[in-house]
């Protein structure tokens, strides 16, 4: 049964689709934490992105406008986050938790006041699925990679681009330097605040994109708390991936795979509840067995005030 399942291309397509809303916020968290700001607000920012994506898409009748609006809202809330954590040295974890609670409340409140309890309108446009003509005909790869939502491809591009950005550009070097030792970066002439803003804002936009994928990519509607804890799983994926884009994707894929597998394996007489423990158990096993220690950027979570 397991073998048969592993050979099903839809399992692997589902893996990719399930990994996307984890990989994006994990990538977002990577940016933020690489610049030294602990980001636990992915869950909340995803909800912001998911809700405002639908809101803007519905009123403009364009999913792309929705996407843009969601990214802007993700950036705006991140500016606020950056302001209090970078300029005012607020505790990053507390602020992050505050944003999560705030975002869950705000999106539910706005959903009810704007659209009522029945949910968002069915006429909301969604982001398109794309069929890659060259790839979709290749056996095995085709059914997996050939036709997915546009955000899935975007995610793959962003992961690779982020890897290049963080590890092969001067700006990426600077961003990492700030997260490792802001004082040293400061004395080397870097603008610590600007770089941290950059990390936090890119991070917020990526988390927001993860939310948009849920609401406008997979669906065309918003549900209360539809992020469903993926922001927290993303936090785990980011740590698991050792604060790297490729690692985060890898962890997200592992998780997505286990989720997809637990879907496929159901119905064999074992309680679905037991089968659904699989992703979580597998993560622990992989972490302890293969990955072991993963160390955060040295100055992650530590506010930098040059006069102290």
């Amino acid at each position, binding site marked *: 049964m397991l073998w048969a399942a592993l050979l099903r291309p839809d399992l692997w397509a589902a893996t990719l689709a399930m990994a996307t809303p984890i990989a994006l916020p994990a990538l977002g968290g990577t940016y933020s934490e690489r610049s030294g700001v602990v980001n636990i607000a992915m869950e909340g920012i995803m909800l912001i992105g998911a809700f405002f994506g639908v809101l803007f898409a519905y009123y403009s009748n364009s999913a792309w406008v929705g996407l843009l609006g969601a990214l802007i809202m993700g950036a705006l809330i991140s500016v606020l986050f950056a302001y209090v954590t970078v300029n005012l040295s607020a505790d990053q974890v507390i602020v992050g938790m505050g944003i999560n609670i705030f975002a869950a409340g705000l999106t539910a409140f706005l959903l009810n006041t704007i659209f009522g309890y029945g949910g968002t309108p069915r006429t909301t446009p969604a982001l398109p699925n794309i069929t890659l003509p060259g790839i979709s005909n290749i056996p095995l790869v085709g059914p997996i990679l050939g036709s997915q939502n546009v955000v899935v491809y975007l995610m793959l591009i962003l992961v690779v681009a982020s890897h290049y950005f963080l590890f092969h550009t001067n700006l990426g070097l600077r961003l990492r330097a700030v997260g490792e030792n802001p004082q040293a*970066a*400061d004395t080397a002439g870097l603008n610590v605040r600007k770089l941290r803003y950059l990390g936090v804002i890119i991070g917020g936009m990526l988390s927001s994109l993860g939310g948009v994928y849920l609401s406008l990519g997979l669906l065309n509607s918003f549900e209360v708390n539809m992020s469903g804890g993926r922001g927290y799983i993303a936090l785990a994926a980011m740590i698991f991936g050792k604060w790297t884009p490729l690692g985060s994707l890898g962890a997200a894929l592992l998780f997505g795979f286990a989720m997809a597998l637990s879907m496929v394996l159901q119905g064999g007489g074992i309680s679905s509840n037991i089968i659904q423990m699989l992703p979580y158990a597998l993560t622990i096993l992989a972490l302890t067995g293969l990955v072991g220690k993963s160390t955060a950027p040295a100055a992650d979570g530590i506010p930098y005030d040059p006069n102290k």
Partner: protein
Amino acid sequence: MRTCLEVRDITKSFPGVIANDHVNFSVSDGEIHAILGENGAGKSTLMKIIYGLYKPDSGSIKLYDQELNFTSPRQAIQAGIGMVHQHFMLIPALTVAENIVLGGEPGNIRYRRRENIEMVRDLAKQYHMDIDPSAKVGDLTVGLQQRVEILKVFYRKAKLLILDEPTAMLTPQEVEELILVMERLRSQGIPIIFISHKLDEVKRISDRVTVMRAGKTVNTVETKSASAQDLANMMVGREVVLHVSKPPQEPGEPILKVEDVVVSADRSDKVKGVSFQVHRGEIFGLAGIDGNGQSELIEAITGLMPCKEGKIEFLGKDITHSTVRQRTKEGIAYIPQDRHLDGLVLDFELTENFVLRDFSAEPYSHLGQLNKKSIEEYSTRLSEAFDVRPRRIHALARNLSGGNQQKVILAREVSRNPELLIAAQPTRGLDVGAIQFIHNKLLELRAQGKGVLLVSLELDEIMALSDRIGVIHDGKLMAIVPGGEATREQLGLLMTGVDMEKEG
């Protein structure tokens, strides 16, 4: 000669301290200007103000008659000021090359990994510094890190150099190299501000000296016109004795026996079979260039690292596999080389730090419950006996100056009345007064018939205090020479692995 830098009436206070109090001094082109002062006199603070890291409360700074109003080091760098910081400003997770080019990377978008490595290799060669540009800074010894810190400044081609204690971590040979470089720069007309606690270096290379005391500039003198003793007196504000007097003493029976010890870390042997003994009433000095296995050796003796092979005997008992706790109880005291990393819990109060090694023993705790009163009494006693300032036992260790932090550790370890004290770099970064205090404590222990194992990179310190000196190189003990007979040259050669007896 043109005046390069002019500092006028700079004042800077931190909560509770005036670190700089109307400071005045100036630096001319082509001058090496030394700044001297006790720990906490305000030297680093002043340099950080010049470099734009701190904003002064009042006063003015002029660079070539231009008023400086830096709000960040970026402007200082643009104005051509380069600074080597006393506490490393390095990023351990990045490579040497990355650390050096950071903030001034060549090219636009792409980070040019290979080109940068080559460039840094050339730069290092130019200044006669041997370093691997692609090594991770976190993997380097402190001595090598110091070189990176210096290379960073040279990379930027500064017009004014500030070197805040650049020699504290260098071997004698490296110090010589650095002095050569400084002289070369002087001849090119580049002014250098040089901070050091080592009076002989200051005497040798500086043109003028400004002495600071308690945040104020006391005096600026021509170096030639003052003796080392004069400078020391000016710094401290009273007469100081610069030389330790070590009365002769017969050593007693052996207290620590180390036999063929092998210690390995990161999958390679760092200590490769070392044997020696420390006797009662003896200071055994361990000399060596940083990174040759001395840290691993003492951590194996104190129980912080496992001993792969060999045997360690203490007071006749085999302690090779004992825990840290057991060894502590048996009477081994240890002053670790990095006080922030190992020696203190910076966010604990002094009281809690004073009992760090004995909190679970009577009378500091009883049946698992801490005894606040006796801990406080003990702390007060230690604070007074070792002149820890401020005298507030509930202050956080973090808020003490480095010298006073070191005194807390010393007080804790010495007062445990140990049979053996292992002291690693006990005087690093301390001023002459504090060094003197610590040296006297070590000699007191020796007089009481205890054993002392002293590890230091400072040859002068080793030679002045040790009864016998073991020289370690590449994890092996090259030789053990009697303290009285050793010469700097002989030790220096042994430290670099040249065995004269074999060669000769």
